[in-house]
């Protein structure tokens, strides 16, 4: 074979290979752009409006007001955070592609994700980042995240259109974790907010999320439509509608009747019936770590100010029995709001006594403290498990403690908390990768604007210990500090008592809903999946 022939054959092979590669690449490319360029699989799956029976409503149309659980989960459809956790608790970049600290983490440089578009079609650049963070950091704008972010950020500046540098107020090794919630770091187009504090006229400012806002009828429903130019590929679902159904039974009925395709916070008994096949056409999934329940003691309280009384309360309770009774058998008894079998738990419990139930010793401690059955109030919100409160009251009563359960709606709960008008407080907790960050509001007495201590406890040594946590770059070092915090809070001062994780919240969806992934908590998405990858079987 002469050289020319060989060259022709090689050229032909190269052409065929090139064509094959082009076909493969086209099929494998993300589902973006116009419909014609979308792969067949996308075309088969796309379409339909997913209706979700939501236990709560979105609170406001403002991206920078305080968010509450479900409110945040709904807003995460249109606004996105800088970083986000996956189901395993690993942090991923969302609006940021990468980030880099300087040597002592007093400066952080973020590379923006390229090709991210706002719902108004404009491309997201560093100018939008700087404007959004300046907006939050200006106290006159009343942004809720001002308290947290001004404790982290001193200055934000654009290095180039796709790079932003944050100068911190000091070393902040966990800054990317702080930016994992939309409250602390969503980006809106430059100049898109103004006017009065917390108020929005008309539609909310454009976000970058997979769905864009259509309308909101407060207390009734929130509607979104697919954002075709979403940076991670257009969602399969054409629309998304959150129907606000506050009543659990009504949500369950709506799901069974097919009036909604998905619903949150369903009863364990409902999930059990689905599991046993008594209800068909539906799938359910318990939310691991739906919420941790714990007790805080008011260290300034008349009786709970005495450490002996606090200890008596702790040893009057049987954690296993409390969880069994309070969570109706679907909970994990644990002393700390961290995952079971984690190094956080091992470090935390290393120096923590087991506090076995000892009614006799509890009575002795109460006698020494001079306590004689005076009422102690247990401040809790209406949404929390009354059965759990009843279990605590009953067990403590066996040791001579007179705890009065006071379930109130959240405004009064927080008002009493602010005034220190309680003996015990039942509170929720959740794990978001870095448990040491969660302790700040509970025990730091005075640190910049983060000023409160739920228990009334005030100790500069504790402030210093907790403040050292976010400055530690090394995870092992943070685990060690967390262990110290736990020892100080739970063992030395006995200000807190962990009950356990309640796994009594369930998502349910009809069989036609495919490929949905929840978030690490009860979110509708995580860093790697969620409603934007969900589709409805025709």
């Amino acid at each position, binding site marked *: 074979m002469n050289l020319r022939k060989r060259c022709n054959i090689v050229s032909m092979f190269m052409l065929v290979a090139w064509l094959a590669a082009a076909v493969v690449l086209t099929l494998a490319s993300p589902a973006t752009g116009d419909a014609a360029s979308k792969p067949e699989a996308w075309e088969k799956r796309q379409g339909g409006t997913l209706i979700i029976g939501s236990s709560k409503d979105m609170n406001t149309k403002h991206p920078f007001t305080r968010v509450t659980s479900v409110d945040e989960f709904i807003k995460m459809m249109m606004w996105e955070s800088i970083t986000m956790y996956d189901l395993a608790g690993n942090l991923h970049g969302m609006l940021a592609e990468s980030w880099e600290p300087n040597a002592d983490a007093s400066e952080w440089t973020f590379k923006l994700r390229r090709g991210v578009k706002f719902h108004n079609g404009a491309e997201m650049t560093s100018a939008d980042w700087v404007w959004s963070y300046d907006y939050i950091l200006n106290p006159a704008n009343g942004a809720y995240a001002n308290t947290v972010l001004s404790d982290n950020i001193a200055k934000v500046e654009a290095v180039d259109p796709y790079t932003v540098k944050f100068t911190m107020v000091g070393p902040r090794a966990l800054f990317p974790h702080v930016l994992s919630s939309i409250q602390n770091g969503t980006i809106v187009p430059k100049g898109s907010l103004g006017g009065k504090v917390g108020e929005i006229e008309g539609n909310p400012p454009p976000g970058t999320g997979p769905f864009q806002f259509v309308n909101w009828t407060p207390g009734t429903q929130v509607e979104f439509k697919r954002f075709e130019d979403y940076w991670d590929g257009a969602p399969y679902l054409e629309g998304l509608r959150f129907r606000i159904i*506050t009543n659990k039974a009504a949500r369950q009925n709506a799901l*069974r009747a097919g009036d909604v395709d998905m619903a949150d916070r369903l009863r364990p008994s409902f999930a059990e019936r689905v599991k046993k096949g008594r209800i068909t056409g539906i799938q359910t999934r318990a939310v691991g770590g739906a919420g941790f329940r714990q007790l805080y003691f008011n260290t300034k309280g008349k009786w709970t100010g005495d450490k002996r009384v606090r200890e008596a309360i702790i040893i009057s309770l049987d954690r296993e029995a409390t969880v069994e009774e309070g969570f109706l058998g679907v909970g994990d008894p644990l002393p700390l709001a961290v995952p079971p079998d984690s190094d956080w738990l091992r470090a935390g419990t290393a120096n923590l006594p087991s506090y076995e139930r000892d009614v006799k010793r509890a009575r002795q401690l109460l006698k020494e403290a001079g306590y004689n059955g005076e009422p102690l109030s247990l401040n809790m919100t209406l949404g929390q498990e009354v059965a759990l409160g009843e279990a605590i009251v009953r067990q403590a009563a066996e040791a001579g403690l007179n705890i009065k359960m006071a379930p109130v709606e959240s405004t009064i709960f927080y008002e009493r908390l602010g005034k220190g008008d309680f003996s015990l407080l039942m509170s929720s907790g959740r794990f978001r990768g870095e448990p040491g960050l969660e302790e700040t509001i509970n025990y730091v007495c005075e640190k910049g604007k983060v000023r409160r201590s739920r228990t009334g406890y005030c100790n500069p040594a504790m402030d210093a210990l907790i403040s050292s946590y976010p400055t530690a770059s090394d995870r092992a070092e943070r685990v060690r500090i967390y262990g110290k915090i736990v020892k100080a809070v739970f063992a030395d001062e006995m200000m807190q008592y962990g009950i356990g994780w309640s796994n009594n919240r369930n998502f349910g969806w009809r069989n036609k809903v495919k490929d949905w992934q929840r978030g690490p908590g009860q979110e509708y998405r995580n860093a790697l999946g969620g409603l934007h990858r969900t589709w409805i079987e025709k």
Partner: protein
Amino acid sequence: MAAPTKRMIRYTLLRALQMIPTVLLVTVAVFVLIIIIPGDPVLSMLGYYADDVTAVPHEIYDRMFRELRLDRPIPVQYLYWLGDALQGDFGKSVVFRVPVIDVVLSRVPATLYLGTASLLIAIAVSVPFGVWAAVKNDTWVDHLASGFVLFGIAVPGFWFGMIVILVFAIYLGWLPSIGYVPPQEDFLRFLKHLILPATVLGLDVAANILRFQRTDFLDQLHQDYVRTARAKGLPGQLVIWKHVLKNSLIATVTVVGLNTARLLGGSTIIETLFSYPGLSRLLIEAIYARDFPVIQAVVLWMVVLVVIVNFFVDLIYAYLNPRIRYATA
């Protein structure tokens, strides 16, 4: 103008004038009630928890405090509020940060449809059935009516609601279990969404009305004028529907009046069960969230409605029993 007509006009005007001080007194009560309920509207408006008071920048807090006119004496606050309310301005919802009037008006049509449909069902069932039961006293018809009344009064609405949802929405799949569709959007779906909640509410009210209707009708049947009418040779149906029914309606109108107000503002449980976006559900949610402006607006709406319904009930009384308007005049 004939004397009875004059008396009726005078009676109507008098009753209308009496509504004004009633409504004013209620506005004072609503305003004061909101002031004494715990909770800081400034913090709520700013989106902070009540234990966050030290976290809010002072200038922001003070500015909002002044904007809400909380720095003024309470009587002045009331006058401002009343003046604004008369112009339809109830301020902004603390929770949703949108004008209260928009939130309330978005719920009014659904409430009116549900209330009206329930009332129509209630009257359509109770009045003929009550008359029939009284005429057929102590027969199976009467026993059936008594059973219906017993069931309607004894069985809680939410339980009955759950049962109809199970049967008609889940097992049979004929009707939706939740929600509301505006009639202008899709009239058939509007009706489908209305049937279950309206029936549950309507039958509950029907039991109440039927009880009074039957007793009163029975009472009237034994009156001398009925015996006289029959002795004169009037047809039985004419005696029943023209003479007895009109005289037996006084108590029925009272019960219908009371229940109308309830249907238009007090159907919280049914609205919650059917996730129906009515005013009662809005009120409960606003109370939980300490959304003061919404609470004020909804309570005021309900009170005004009760006053108006009572006004019409009084007019119907006067029509049914002329002695009432003569006594007042």
